């Protein structure tokens, strides 16, 4: 338990910001899960609702920004308090972006489902989505509890996501190359996989912020990267 401020209203402000981040995190997680489910179950009925629900994330992020600015102006935070508030702003930005990617996955899923009968069943895409969902879930827990070790575990696991993305990319290029009729759906699925890989990066970014709140500096070692998709081509 963090020691309390003499001005107790400041503790309330910080708790409120944390609560807003938690709500934003819950929404982003939910949106991503819904988008992945729509693709995996080939069910377009939920897609409009997912697109619509993204507005809530945007609104909540905006409210959090306003609140954080008020707290900075009124409380003149120092040291860890200052880091917590700045990080709440940045994490909220990351979560809002995760929401945008989820919305984009939902929109692309519609095209995939309508144009192609088999690509949507891609097992590797389901796996990368599962891995990334776990990362988000865990990084949100780490944020709520301020657990930098748990956050660093998420940070390490982004390597798996990157590697899987590279293999999905190559696999899809081959499938598209073998059957030009699959270009529309296949291209959309390439973007879906890329969006999921980016969501993993945002989860990793949140992990770094959690580490920063705790330690006052960013993780010193550079993160292992294994996304080779940008140099992949069909032979």
């Amino acid at each position, binding site marked *: 338990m963090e*020691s*309390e*401020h*003499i*001005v107790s209203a*400041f503790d309330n402000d910080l708790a409120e910001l944390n609560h807003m981040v938690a709500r934003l995190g819950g929404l982003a997680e939910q949106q991503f899960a819904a988008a992945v489910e729509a693709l995996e179950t080939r069910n377009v009925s939920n897609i409009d609702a997912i697109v619509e629900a993204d507005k809530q994330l945007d609104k909540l992020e905006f409210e959090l920004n306003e609140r954080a600015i008020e707290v900075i102006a009124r409380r*003149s*935070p*120092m*040291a*860890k*308090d*200052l*880091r917590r508030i700045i990080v709440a702003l940045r994490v909220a930005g990351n979560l809002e972006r995760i929401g945008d990617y989820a919305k984009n996955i939902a929109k692309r899923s519609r095209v995939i489902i309508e144009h192609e009968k088999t690509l949507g069943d891609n097992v590797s895409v389901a796996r990368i989505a599962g891995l990334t969902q776990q990362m988000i879930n865990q990084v949100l827990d780490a944020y709520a509890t301020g657990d930098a070790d748990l956050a660093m575990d998420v940070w390490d696991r982004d390597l798996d996501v990157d590697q899987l993305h590279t293999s999905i990319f190559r696999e899809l290029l081959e499938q598209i190359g073998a059957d030009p009729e699959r270009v529309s759906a296949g291209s959309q699925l390439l973007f879906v996989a890329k969006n999921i890989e980016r969501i993993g990066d945002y989860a990793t970014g949140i992990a770094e912020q959690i580490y920063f709140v705790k330690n*006052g*500096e960013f993780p010193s070692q550079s993160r292992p990267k294994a996304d080779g998709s940008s140099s992949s081509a069909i032979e």
Partner: protein
Amino acid sequence: MSSQEENIKISARGVTVHYGAAQALHGIDLDIRANEVTALIGPSGCGKSTFLRCINRMNDAIEDCHFGGTIEIDGEDIYSGGIDVVELRARVGMVFQKPNPFPKSIYDNVAYGPRIHGLASSKDELDHMVETSLRRAGLWQEVHDRLHTSGSGLSGGQQQRLCIARTIAVNPNVVLMDEPCSALDPIATAIIEELIEELRSQYTIVIVTHSMQQAARVSQRTAYFHLGHLVEQGDTDRIFTNPANKQTEAYISGKIG
């Protein structure tokens, strides 16, 4: 010798102060760099003002006050027998919490120090010193046409700048400031803070302040005192974003330490 060591203006080692039986400072080791602003922070009674007053031997005047340890300025021990305390206080000027102009004209307030120290050999030279000091204190524009009116007729912020002009008129190289803005409004405070930033190119400044925000704004180095001990010192940027000590963190964050 590293370049940082070469820049050390004031070096305190094992400084203790007792007021009678009560010990106010417990072995303070602190190096203060030239041409930087060093902020001394800490709760009331932590010893920061006592330490500040050791740097120009202001505590000598307090009965039953006993100093131990050493303070060197430019490598010279200011507590050694051969030191002329009056001359020391010209070299190490002080600005107080409440502006305290003499009940004299603006001109005479500034001319006072140069006169008693015999720094000017002619009226012209004294005029020049008064003007230069008032300019450096950022007050010249506001008072040049009423130099012979009373200093106490100025606003609080102007009076404080007059006191700064009076302090720097005797060519100190260290300026000590004991909560110089605590009696001033935010605009007058901002003007003094801007002045502090300008002055540091020529003087070494040590400031005691109760305002964390002020310490963060004006200083390059910060030292945190608690119960007569120096708890932590370091670059101001680090102290206010990532202090190493839990007590420092609690104090600057407004927590129950």
